């Protein structure tokens, strides 16, 4: 079918073709603009009167055309095709952005993030040159402000309000850290007790874990890896490792599997910048190892794990775990991790749910491998199964992403060959 130029108005029936919005092969909907027509009185787009696929465009830019001129030919679409045009079903992102045009609020400014217009690269936020100059001099990034003017325009009052918020946040923070009220319970009523001050390490653990647990929505993915063959390799090579001063445990093997899997799952190796709402994808793979020491848990970090063999990882773990137990780790040794591995298998236990080491977004917990009967090709076999749990931050990593990683990780671990384990 053909779409023709309709009558444009009472006194003008011809015009010049301006922009052409469609080309052969495009799928168009009813009311979608096909071309733009410039007449004496108006510049207007000509909408399609039917849905379908454009088979030919009969006009070009600059053509003088009259009402009735063929514009395009369409291959009509079935009813469904028209509604399945990409973009048509996308929910309009208007609502949150609309908030910015609300007039100034009475009363104290609200805390927390306010909707801001999406920034366009190369175009500064909507604010006058004098405001932008002032912000530069004060070191304020206007992209972090929500303006109250038309279209989210930032005015002097908005900058003043933002500075006040920063000041309030700056002075309020220490107060919030004030000590919690004293324990109301007197335990000594029921028997003897002994009080010792919590160590610095203990207090840091308490603070970090509470913060992570309170702010990060955790998702836990459970799985089991069949490590029967790995255990055989382990039996064979553990003495060789020992001769060379390293211990062949499951940790370096799982670490190797993580190193092989993580690069294909960049979300699991990222962090969320809560202030700027940006996802920070790290292009390096540094894995923290949870080490149990007398003083409590510490997490030293192994660098660039993807470049290291199982043997090299085993050597490094030996070295770093020893330094951890001797409390010889530096601050740098415990910084820069992108993912954490916590192995409790040496002690025992099955599946457990580790808490994410924020700002990382995922942690893998290993329990103890156990011999269990498993159906292999219809027959029950003794297999060694390693319980694994991946905890991930649902703000960054959705369940599907998490389980995809775990499935790949298990397959990689199970697929580690003798060659992977044998030292060079």
């Amino acid at each position, binding site marked *: 079918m053909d779409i023709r130029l309709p009558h444009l*108005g009472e006194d003008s029936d011809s015009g*010049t073709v*301006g*922009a052409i919005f469609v080309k052969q092969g495009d799928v168009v909907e009813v009311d979608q603009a096909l071309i733009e027509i*410039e*007449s*004496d*009185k*108006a*510049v*207007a*787009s*000509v*909408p399609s009167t039917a849905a379908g696929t454009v088979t030919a465009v009969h006009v070009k*830019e*600059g053509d003088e055309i009259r009402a009735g001129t063929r514009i395009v030919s369409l291959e009509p679409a079935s009813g469904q095709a028209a509604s399945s045009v990409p973009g048509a079903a996308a929910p309009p*992102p*208007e609502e949150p*952005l*609309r908030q*910015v*045009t609300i007039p100034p609020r009475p009363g104290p400014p609200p805390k927390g993030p306010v909707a801001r*217009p*999406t920034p*366009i690269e190369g*175009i*500064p*936020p*909507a*604010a*006058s*040159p004098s405001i*932008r*100059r002032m912000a*530069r*001099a004060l*070191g304020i990034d206007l992209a972090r402000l929500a*303006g109250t*003017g*038309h*279209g*989210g*325009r*930032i005015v002097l009052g908005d900058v003043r309000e933002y500075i006040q918020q920063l000041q309030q946040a700056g002075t309020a923070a220490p107060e919030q850290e004030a000590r919690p009220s004293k324990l109301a319970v007197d335990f000594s009523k029921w028997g003897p007790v002994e009080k010792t001050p919590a160590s610095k390490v203990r207090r840091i653990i308490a603070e970090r874990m509470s913060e992570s647990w309170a702010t990060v929505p955790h998702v836990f993915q459970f799985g089991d890896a069949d490590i029967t063959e790995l255990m055989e390799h382990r039996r064979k090579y553990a003495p060789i490792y020992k001769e060379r001063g390293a211990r062949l445990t499951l940790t370096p093997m799982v670490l190797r599997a993580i190193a092989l899997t993580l690069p294909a799952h960049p979300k699991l190796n990222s962090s969320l910048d809560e202030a700027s709402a940006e996802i920070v994808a790290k292009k390096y793979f540094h894995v923290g190892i949870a080490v149990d020491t007398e003083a409590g848990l510490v997490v030293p970090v192994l660098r660039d794990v993807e470049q290291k063999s199982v043997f090299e990882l085993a050597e490094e773990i030996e070295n770093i775990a020893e330094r951890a137990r001797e409390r010889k780790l530096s601050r740098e040794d415990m910084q820069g991790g992108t993912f954490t591995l916590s192995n409790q298998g040496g002690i025992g236990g099955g599946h457990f749910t580790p808490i994410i080491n924020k700002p990382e977004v995922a942690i893998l917990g290993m329990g103890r491998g156990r011999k269990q009967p498993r159906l292999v090709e219809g027959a029950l076999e003794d297999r060694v199964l390693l319980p694994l749990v991946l905890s991930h931050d649902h703000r960054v990593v959705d369940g599907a992403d998490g389980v995809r990683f775990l499935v790949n990780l298990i397959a990689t671990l199970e697929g580690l060959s003798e060659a992977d384990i044998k030292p060079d």
Partner: protein
Amino acid sequence: MEPIKAELVVLGAGPGGYAAAFYAADLGKKVILVEKESRLGGVCLNHGCIPSKALLYATGLIGEARESAERGIAFSDPEIDVAKLRSWKDSVIHKLATGVGALADRRGVEVLTGRGHFEGSGVLRVETEGGQRFIEFENVIVALGSRPSIPKALDLGNRRVMTSNEALEVEMIPESLLVVGGGYIGMEMGTVYAALGSRVVLVEALDSILQGIDSDLVRPVLRYAKEHFDELRIRTEVRKLATKGKQIEVTTDGTDGKTTELYDRVLVSVGRRPNSDDLGLGNTKVELDERGFIRVDGQQRTADSNIFAIGDVTGGVLLAHKASKEARVAVEALVGESSIFEAVIPAVVFTHPEVAWCGLTETEALDRGIAVEVAKFPWAASGRAISVDKPDGLTKLVIEPETERILGMGIVGVGAGELISEGVALIEMGGTARDLAETVHPHPTLSETLMEAAEMFYGHATHATSRQKRKQ
């Protein structure tokens, strides 16, 4: 001779260089302005913006007078005295250049006439008429501009093959003129010579004149050129130029195949190149890009931290007012302010009619995948445009659909260059279509077309109807 010590040396006295020198002097710096020409003002004043606009104004009257006959007021054919036209144009330049010199004097800016050459990161040698002078500087701002580039194949060393520099001298009115390159310089100079009576043929290698400008803004210029130029050939390249007696034999290769013709003059306007060679930048840490433009950061600082560069020599759009703004940024940076260059730079092409735009263009939005809405108001619906008999024009706005913020403006029509500044101010202020629609504009003026374009966005312009109503 003892080397001169200077807080700031500015190399080049064009609209970037003298603006930098004057501003720095106003902020209390001791400034030396080095310029190789005896006359200040640079390309813009001496061989660019100013003489071309003087000629466009003077010759524009020829067409005005001719068209006037249709309105019942007829003039006899004009008599053209080329020598007088040239000397009037020169007087314009002289007046302005003298003014720039006086402004330098009054600020105590020392002008040194000569060619500057870097001996190192802190020393400049200047070749003056009175011999070499050495300057030990704390900072330098390089503002040496650009010059017409002429491909080797077209450079015959024959004065009948001109660049814009020679064309602006109007040595004579050639019977036939070939303009190579349909950019703004070719279009403006073609317009001047066509008005003076030359038979003008313009060839452009690409598929449109005024490349990079939205096609709806180019169309009225195209219509004018088609009417007043002898011919306009797109997708046509010049293969060969050869001297043939008092003429130039030109071989072009276009959509109709090869053509060989004779022209009295050829104007080559295919682009400009930076004046970054021959000044000893190799003795500094300054870096150039692959086309020879000096690399600078957002504060106009080069890789050599004491050396700044502004204007054409740094690339981007080659416009005098961009250089002047960069001059301010550079001077503020070197006195320790946190200024960065992020200004909206308007552009104007002084053809008939003029084309002006600023901010984001529709073409750029499309290329970069930025979602925008475009509102247009045709001048055929403007009372003012019709009453001055210049209805061929268009005002358009490029609008961010969520916030309705105006991101760009484009105008084609008589006086577009004067109208665009309102768009620049609006964009700089973060203004919205609503702001513009609700701002009263005087009637009857061409400025109303801006307001009505904003009203078109909402579907309720007074003097035009829009088929699209914006959902409120």
